[in-house]
């Protein structure tokens, strides 16, 4: 177990800079997820932690020790690859024992470690099989087993679930989380799936364009996004963003003319702003309710536990998420009222919060 400190880390390929000075501190035993769209540099950063990519600038420390120039094998890390990367010519047991064999550990110790990891991951029955005789989920577990056996300072996961089908992904998600609760090893996990990040992480690092946009616990990122990127990236369906201006204290008027009362919102900027409203922070009210505005139902998407409704309000589109079963159909006119104390305001030019 160990802490991980990344300070002003940069990465360039020739003239192309892909990481522009990243600062992240991962505490001992913490589960940190790097999340962001494709090409944001999250996988590159993970590979730099692993030692598979060189570090162009900055300092990386594992347990206070600078590892910038250490070979991967000397960093005491284990990594689970997106493609599993199991050795095809070895059995499951040999795959898991490989690292210990290289360290010339005694046979009995290796067997004990492999058997223990196999038991944790329910792989005992499969120890004699080769990777090609396994299903996707089993291969994923072997890859994790190979990492567990090492008892490393830091676990690195590079989009480990992206090759699994949806159902298995949900199952493996809780298995990984349970594994972390059991082993309490420091984990750095990369994914582009914000649901994975929200459900598993102690803290999330949102990255975009080679920079860190925000670091924080999942719900903090959800409730208090620092900027438009985080607001729109975290949450599914995404946050409603309505362009407009603050015409008076607590009064927002969209560019299309809809007035929305947001008395709790102290605006620091008045023109060219975006009002952010989470889909679940809208309620359907009766006509004439103070602070409500009307809109037309465009599409309803019931999932059983909740219903997603897309509304057209003048020229804007809003998405609402409701837990109760709604009796509305496309074309109906409804009255909506936002939970105005949950509304956020963003500066449309800089993307930063303006409340």
């Amino acid at each position, binding site marked *: 177990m160990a802490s991980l400190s990344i300070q002003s880390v940069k990465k360039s390929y020739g003239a192309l800079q892909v990481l522009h000075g990243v600062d992240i501190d991962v505490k001992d035993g913490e589960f940190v997820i790097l999340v962001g769209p494709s090409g944001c540099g999250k996988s590159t950063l993970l590979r730099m932690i692993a*030692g598979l990519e060189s570090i162009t600038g900055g300092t990386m420390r594992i347990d206070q020790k600078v590892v910038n120039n250490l070979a991967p094998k000397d960093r005491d890390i284990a990594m689970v*690859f997106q493609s599993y*990367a199991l050795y*095809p010519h070895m059995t499951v047991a040999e795959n898991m024992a490989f690292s210990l064999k290289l360290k010339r550990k005694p046979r009995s110790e290796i067997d004990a470690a492999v058997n223990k990891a196999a038991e944790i991951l329910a792989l005992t029955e499969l120890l004699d099989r080769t990777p090609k005789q396994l299903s996707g989920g089993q*291969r994923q577990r072997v890859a994790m087993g*190979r990492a567990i056996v090492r008892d490393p300072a830091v676990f690195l996961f590079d989009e480990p679930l992206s090759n699994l089908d949806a159902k298995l992904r949900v199952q493996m998600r809780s298995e990984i989380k349970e594994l972390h609760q059991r082993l309490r090893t420091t984990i750095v996990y990369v994914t582009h799936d914000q649901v994975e990040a929200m459900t598993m992480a102690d803290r999330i690092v949102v990255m975009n364009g080679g920079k860190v946009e925000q670091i924080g616990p999942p719900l903090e990122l959800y409730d208090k996004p620092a900027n438009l990127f985080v607001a729109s990236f975290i949450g599914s369906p995404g946050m409603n963003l309505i362009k407009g201006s603050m015409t008076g204290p607590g009064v927002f008027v969209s560019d299309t003319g809809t007035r929305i009362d947001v008395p709790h919102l102290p605006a620091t900027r008045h023109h060219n702003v975006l009002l952010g409203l989470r889909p679940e922070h809208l309620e359907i009210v009766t006509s004439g309710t103070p602070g409500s505005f009307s809109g037309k139902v465009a599409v309803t998407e019931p999932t059983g536990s909740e219903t997603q409704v897309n509304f057209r309000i003048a020229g804007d589109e809003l998405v609402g998420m409701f837990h109760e079963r709604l009796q509305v159909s496309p074309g109906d006119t409804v009255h909506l009222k936002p939970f105005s104390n949950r509304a956020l305001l963003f500066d449309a030019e800089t993307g930063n919060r303006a409340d």
Partner: protein
Amino acid sequence: MNETTPLKRWSLSALMLVIVAFLNMPIILMVLNSFQTTEQMLLSRSVIPAVFSLENYRGLTQTPFFQYFQNSVIVSLGATVVSVSAAVLGGYALSRYRNGLLQGYSTSLFAVQMFPVILALIPLFLIFQPLGLINNPLSVIIVYAVVNLPFITWMARSYFDTIPRELEEAALIDGCGPIEAFLRIVLPLSGPGIAATSIFAFLFSYNEFFVANVFLRTTNAMTLPVGIRMFMDQFSTDWGSLMAAATLMMLPTLVLFMFVQKFIAHGAVAGGVKG
């Protein structure tokens, strides 16, 4: 979907058999003729010998045929081992690393292929002679290995390109150095690729006539392609012995193919990474 009736299958098989027989006619004729003497061959009206005779094969024991055979095997195996070892290492470097030196090397591999070996024969002869390498298998081993190298380096490189890099990266993290990762992970998975390059290198060396004809002049040093010319005189050709010699010469190639066939199967790296 599957509409093949037994009749259709049988007729397709028969058609295939005819095509195979037609394509392999020279080889079939060679093998059949090796079982009759030159006189029988010239008198016969049929392709299939009236009497199978091992006379030609027995006759070969009176000739230096088996000396040639031995020389050929030494030369071919020597050239194969040298060139494949170099090609595997070179191909791996070309597949995994990028820098100016390797770029230059890979370009020069192409450039070298542009020059026919005949251009180098006289200079090589002048170099080999003072070194005492004329009539020595080492001379042709060197030449064959070098002539083979560009092509089989590219063959090896394209095979290594198919082995996922993540496997080595996993090995690096598990505690291997770069060389150990190559030896423990990449090499054991390269069986099919190495088999293919080896066959290519072996066949070239085993069949080569021109270079051997220049450097190997004595009976003790000659390889098979050069040696079996002894059955063809200026005014007469001992067809029977020639056919028997050619048939025997073909055997190592046949055995080699049957032996390595199982290695050239797909799926050596199946299951390692998500495909």
